[in-house]
């Protein structure tokens, strides 16, 4: 770390806040204590301006530009109409990418939700609930890159006969007689699933924590009433817990879907999209940096946006219905 870096860090950590505090104090000084209607709107603009500028520069303007770029050629010079979109939906490799994302979407979301719900329900009934939940939640705290390394090691493959150092092959060899060790990340029949497992391992804790909060929110007397009426545990789950939990499940599923559409790091670290494992975000990265085709890269990004628009509308609707506290 050189002295210039230290200076920059000091500016960023101390200087920027001081600058902002100075800015807001000064703008208030300018407005004076005039608390009239017009000045209150002007005041609000001062308070919002820093955020608004950054939001426009880093989100609003780039989104619009990307949509325009998606209709231009590789070097963003001339317009090519919808050619990039045609490529996205007809090219053999792109179709594989879309298939992989669909596989992630369905498998990752369903299994993560199921595990999250199962663990939340089971942990609710034991004394070591907090410990169990911490263990499952821990992967949420680490990076996808670290998780990628952890699981590459789990999936390590040595030829049959040699001692397996990867946990997965070692356990399966010990349990299944005559088991042939698998190269999980290289075999095109298994590698996508192997990557999805890593995502599930990381995100189940998230689903579990939110669903667990939902389960604890179900009033005890409702469950007691069902029990007195003679319902067994499964019936209670099916006809009481599940319906009451439905809104929570929707929230978790929505979040998982948003995240899985953008999945990048796991694939980048573990296979770099080789051997039929490429997903949308990795493809976009390659179009951008390996092929320098900004038109196609932008079109791929717009696909992500289109996929997420329903969620966006849902969020906005939910907010408007819930009013202030949605």
């Amino acid at each position, binding site marked *: 770390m050189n002295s210039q870096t230290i200076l920059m860090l000091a500016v*960023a950590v101390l200087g920027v*806040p001081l600058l902002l505090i100075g800015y807001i104090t000064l703008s208030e000084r300018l407005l004076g204590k005039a608390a009239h209607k017009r000045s209150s709107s002007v005041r609000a603009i001062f308070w919002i301006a820093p955020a608004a500028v*950054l939001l426009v520069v880093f989100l609003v303007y780039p989104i619009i530009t990307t949509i325009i770029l998606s209709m231009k050629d590789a070097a963003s010079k001339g317009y090519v109409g919808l050619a990039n979109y045609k490529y996205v939906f007809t090219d053999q490799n792109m179709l594989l990418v879309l298939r992989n994302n669909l596989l992630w979407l369905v498998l990752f979301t369903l299994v993560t939700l199921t595990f999250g719900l199962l663990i939340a329900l089971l942990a609710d009934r034991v004394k070591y609930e907090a410990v169990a939940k911490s263990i499952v939640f821990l992967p949420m*705290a680490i990076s*996808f890159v670290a998780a990628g390394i952890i699981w590459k090691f789990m999936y390590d493959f040595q030829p049959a006969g040699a001692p397996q150092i990867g946990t997965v092959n070692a356990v399966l060899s010990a349990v299944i007689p005559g088991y042939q060790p698998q190269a999980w990340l290289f075999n095109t029949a298994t590698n996508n699933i192997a990557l999805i497992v890593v995502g599930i391992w990381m995100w189940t804790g998230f689903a579990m924590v939110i669903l667990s909060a939902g389960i604890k929110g179900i009033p005890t007397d409702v469950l007691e009433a069902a029990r007195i009426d003679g319902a067994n545990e499964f019936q209670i789950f099916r006809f009481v817990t599940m319906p009451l939990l439905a809104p929570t499940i929707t929230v978790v599923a929505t979040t998982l879907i948003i995240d899985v559409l953008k999945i990048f790091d796991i694939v980048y670290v573990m296979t770099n999209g080789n051997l039929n494992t490429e997903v949308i975000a990795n493809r*976009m990265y390659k179009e951008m940096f390996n092929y320098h085709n900004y038109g196609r890269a932008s079109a791929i990004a717009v696909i992500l946006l289109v996929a997420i628009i329903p969620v966006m509308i849902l969020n906005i609707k939910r907010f408007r219905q819930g009013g202030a506290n949605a």
Partner: protein
Amino acid sequence: MHRHASSKSPLSRLVLHLILIVICAGWLVPSLGLLISSFRPHNLISTTGWWTALLPPFKFTLSNYTYVLTRGHMGISFINSLIIAIPSTVMPILIAAFAAYAFAWMRFPFKETIFLVIIGLLVVPLQLTLIPVLKLFNALGLTGSFVAIWLAHTGYGLPFAIYLLRNFMQDLPGSVLESAYLDGATHPQIFFKLIIPMSVPAIASLAIFQFMWVWNDLLIALIYLGGTQAVAPMTVTMSNMVNSYGGGWEYLTAAAFISMLLPMLVFFTLQKYFVRGILTGSVKG
């Protein structure tokens, strides 16, 4: 708390414990294998399973850590990660707090419309912004600098920060703010002396959430910092190591564990805030 405990037979209790313990073991084993392997010497890690290290003779070493911290660039990358993450956490929170205060307690035209736009921006995939922002940074000569990544993380973190803080600030007792205002307090005084101290729980959750997000980020760093090793955070250095070392497990495991140290520390000490941040963050993409 354990309201179901009484209603089950001993056998089904046993099955319950068994399932839960197997799941917990399954979740813990991958990290445990990494941790143990990171202390094993090269010749053993590549020829025997990490579980054999649990039995004597115990042969552990710190040399993997010394190697990755010095020659493996993980030492400098650890510092880079801090340099990236601290301003990228402080800046968006302060800027968002200003805006959130205005959204919660001031009246201005198009207030609801602007806020709806921010809610829309919550879930926008960052991929949509990469090319134009990179072009902008290139034009300004900022690509590969910490300033670029601070600004980017600040911009990207704002929608969620504004959303969370505005919702929290709105529920603060209006009567307290009202009477402070009547006593002649200015907006900055109310903001810094009342709003910020009262918002500490929300700010804490937000700070942890944003810090962890930046700390664990690979994509943004990869794109705006280019491949320059001098400014690379740990995520970038580790992904380079995966490519260059291939099966050098002794280095990869040690590097991964170093990158997990701080998040795990945060997780175990501030779990309450961390979980709360995740809970409230469940609308964010």
